[in-house]
């Protein structure tokens, strides 16, 4: 046993998988200790970008410093859109003979093209063939840019409660900065927020935890059923074997996803707790384990030590438990690992079509995907709401599969290269 463990840990694949899995496991174990907030608490708004957010009023109230930095460039670049820059390019190329085309194409950065355009643009230039709307567009653009350039800063005012008049509270100059550390109210969303304004990272950790639990439970149920039926079919043989094999083959070709849909839709929205869904998944995925255990058991059935046990008059459960089970144990462990991975995947798929766990007390990886899709996260460009979830599922499944392959190479010498 010790020797086998050593062998297992010599397998590069197993170790890689194990390390990834352990990292995920430690993360879901320790993260809730560090971040104690409720993962389903709604702190932000719909699909906030990942980043740190500071309170705007705090920023006004915090002591400011003048820093000698060219603020205008950053502001211009940010407020003149790509389409507007294209408009500028078109104008320079079509209506401004003084500027060579190379100059326009050389001006790659937003600021360069704005500067070039400001230098040559003239409202009075006759734009041949251009409609009035287009001409007006340019005038508006010029005013907008001028405005940004000339803005001296902002005045903060407050409505006087008695008179209803605006009173100046503070003036903010263009080059004024505040130290981020001085702002008392800050929120960081490392992975942004989801459609309900929840912190995606905290939610993801909690979801991974629930999904792993679902995977473990589904895997356990499937392995227990598959192992029992497999041992029974393989060892007892005869009629029992025929019946079990027949059922197993049948459930391998009938898509388990379909059976899941039927049961889950039958259970109804209210009836589907996370753990019940896990058990149902377990009940639909045992055939794989059963097949492999049966095949292994058959090859063991007529070994000498089993025959010896039979001759000694040992009972069937005893022979199965002491003479067969230890030899199929490695295959059972491998199948169990795969069952965990497929359990997590099944939950996710089921949740995607809205048949997943219905409770709104916990998040699962599948539910997160479902929410992201329902609220059109891809269309909003909110990649942070679904890509980390997909990667988490893939990572867990990848690590489990690597462990399985590593074990397979150790216990199945034929596969060694």
């Amino acid at each position: 046993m010790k020797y086998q463990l050593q062998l297992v840990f010599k397998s590069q694949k197993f170790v890689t998988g194990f390390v990834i899995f352990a990292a995920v496991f430690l993360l879901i174990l320790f993260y809730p200790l560090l971040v104690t907030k409720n993962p389903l608490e709604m702190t932000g708004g719909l699909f906030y970008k990942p980043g740190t957010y500071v309170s705007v009023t705090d920023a006004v109230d915090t002591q400011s410093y003048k820093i000698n930095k060219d603020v205008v460039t950053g502001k211009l670049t940010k407020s003149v859109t790509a389409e507007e820059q294209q408009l500028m390019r078109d104008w320079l190329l079509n209506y401004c003979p003084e500027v060579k085309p190379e100059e326009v194409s050389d001006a790659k950065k937003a600021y360069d093209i704005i500067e070039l355009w400001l230098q040559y643009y003239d409202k009075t230039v006759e734009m041949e063939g251009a409609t009035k709307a287009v001409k007006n567009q340019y005038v508006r653009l010029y005013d907008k840019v001028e405005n940004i350039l000339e803005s001296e800063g902002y005045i903060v005012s407050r409505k006087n409660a008695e008179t209803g008049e605006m009173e100046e509270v503070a003036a903010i100059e263009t080059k004024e900065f505040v130290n981020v550390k001085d702002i008392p109210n800050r929120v960081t969303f490392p992975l942004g927020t989801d459609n309900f304004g929840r912190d995606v990272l905290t939610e993801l950790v909690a979801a991974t935890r629930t999904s792993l639990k679902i995977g473990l439970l589904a895997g356990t149920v499937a392995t227990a059923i598959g192992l029992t039926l497999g041992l029974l079919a393989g060892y007892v043989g005869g009629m029992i074997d025929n019946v079990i094999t027949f059922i197993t083959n049948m459930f391998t070709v009938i898509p388990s996803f379909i059976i899941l849909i039927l049961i889950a839709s039958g259970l109804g929205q209210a009836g589907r707790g996370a753990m019940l869904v896990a058990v149902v998944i377990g009940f639909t995925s045992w055939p794989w384990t059963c097949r492999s255990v049966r095949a292994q058991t058959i090859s063991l059935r007529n070994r000498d030590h089993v025959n010896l046990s039979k001759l000694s008059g040992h009972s069937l459960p005893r022979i199965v438990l002491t003479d067969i089970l230890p030899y199929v144990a490695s295959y059972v462990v491998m199948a169990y690992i795969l069952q965990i991975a497929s359990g997590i995947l099944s939950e996710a798929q089921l949740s995607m079509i809205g048949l997943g766990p219905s409770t709104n007390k916990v998040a699962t990886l599948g539910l997160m995907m479902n929410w992201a899709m329902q609220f059109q996260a891809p269309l909003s460009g909110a990649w942070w709401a679904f890509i980390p979830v997909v990667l988490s599922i893939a990572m867990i499944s990848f690590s489990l599969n690597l462990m399985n392959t590593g074990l397979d190479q150790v216990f199945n010498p034929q596969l060694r290269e």
Partner: protein
Amino acid sequence: MKGYLKYFSNKTAWYLLTLVVAVILNFLLPRLTPGNPVATIASKAVAGMTDANAIQKVYEDYTRMFGLDKSMPEQFLLYISNLFKGDLGVSFSYFPREVSDLIGSAIGWTVALQLPAILVGWFLGNLLGAVAAYIKGPVDKVVFPVFLFISNVPAFGMAIIILFVFGIYLKWFPSSGGYGFDLIPALNMKFILSVIRHYQMPFWSIVLTTIGGQAIGMRSMSIYELNADYVKYSRFLGIKDKVIVKYVFRNAMLPQITGLVLSLGTMVGGALVAEMIFSYPGLGTRILNAVTGQDFPVISGCTLIITVGVLLANLILEILYGLIDPRIKTAQQE
């Protein structure tokens, strides 16, 4: 020839029996789960309706379809006889459209998407697995782990990433539907082009998910075959490696057909969810809408049709396998 006939008739009989079991499950499972959804859903289905005639019609259809006043066995007989008439009931959400009509308009899209995608993915995956096993070196060291990872990205995950990158970020392809929303299905150039453009992302996302898993299986099969005695013997008789690789590819690929039979159900399940992501007008999207609208007759009809499709595909695959692999023929003659 006798061997083949025996093999085919055995397989066909087995699949027919499996089909019967699948139909029974399709009938029983939703009815046995607690809280009898049929009753609750029927009342929900009419909740939003204002047309008194429509409500009346739904209840009539519903009673006729499920025979609520009858016992289970009688209900089952009714269910079967309706099945034989091709009557799967009436949709709740799209009242008064027939379920068979709804499924009929979706099934073509699903078959046209999934069949080629799974086959192409299966073939490319096998090719890649064989190359990885044979060349070892860079292909095996770099490309293979990448595909190992990709194979672990769930089908819907692959779909959503492809949708986001190529549909929304790069805007190369339209991001939803089976054809432009402003077009009416017709056999003209514009419509066909639109269909082809809408086809790309769902197709490739299914292909990519399929490739990974197949490549892994094929690689270990090929490694096993490459170490087989006949490879060494053929080499020592001076046969070119190119020819030997063909032997290995063929021999490793044959068991992969059985592998496809075993995993087709899982693949189709994943591909259905991929369809939903792209709002492809196939069965996947139908199921999603039916679940959202609690349209029970449509769910039940879709699951039945998908099961029949998967079983039929598997039967064809097994018969093909029997024709291609001489080992089957010999096994049957013994």
